């Protein structure tokens, strides 16, 4: 049962990573490309880390995966905010 759950989470994580890659190539603008990479890419990494936590099933590994997810959630919006502000100022959005 846990193997099936891990496999489904792995497939979902890979799918969202692939969607992020597709979006960063196909979308027309810096801000829309950032929309693809930050949201879909971070979700793909978080699902893959969840799959690692499910696959190992030990308390120490689960805590390390949880810390990884929390650090991703803390740092990805800061980077996206900084580069988005620089890009928006270049295009005179404000």
């Amino acid at each position: 049962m846990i193997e099936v759950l891990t496999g489904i989470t792995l497939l979902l994580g890979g799918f969202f990573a692939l969607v992020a890659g597709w979006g960063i190539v196909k979308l027309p603008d810096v801000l829309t490309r950032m929309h693809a990479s930050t949201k879909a890419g971070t979700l793909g990494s978080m699902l893959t880390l969840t799959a690692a936590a499910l696959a190992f099933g030990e308390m120490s590994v689960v805590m390390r995966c949880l810390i990884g997810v929390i650090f991703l959630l803390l740092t990805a919006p800061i980077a996206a905010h900084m580069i988005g502000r620089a890009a928006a100022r270049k295009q005179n959005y404000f």
Partner: protein
Amino acid sequence: MTPELFMEWSLDAAFVMVMVAIALAFVRLALGPTLHDRVVALDMMTVLIVAFCALYAIRNDDSAFLDIVIVLALVGFLATVALARFAERRLMMREERGEDIKEDRDD
């Protein structure tokens, strides 16, 4: 199909999908018309390498790679923030010099 076989198969599929996504981000890094596109592609490559390390930890049954995940998730955004501040400061300096920032230069 047994559950173990399904997990092995989906692990291989996830490896292929994450590698294709890193290659697509590299395409944007090479093409990207402005500096901002390249910085966004680098940021996404860092996040995808985090996913790759987690997959590698599952494949080799070695939880030491999850420490690399923690370090990458903590440090990976610093390069993006530094490059974004660099781009913004250069733009402000061009504004002070009275140049036309709407003109299409590679920055």
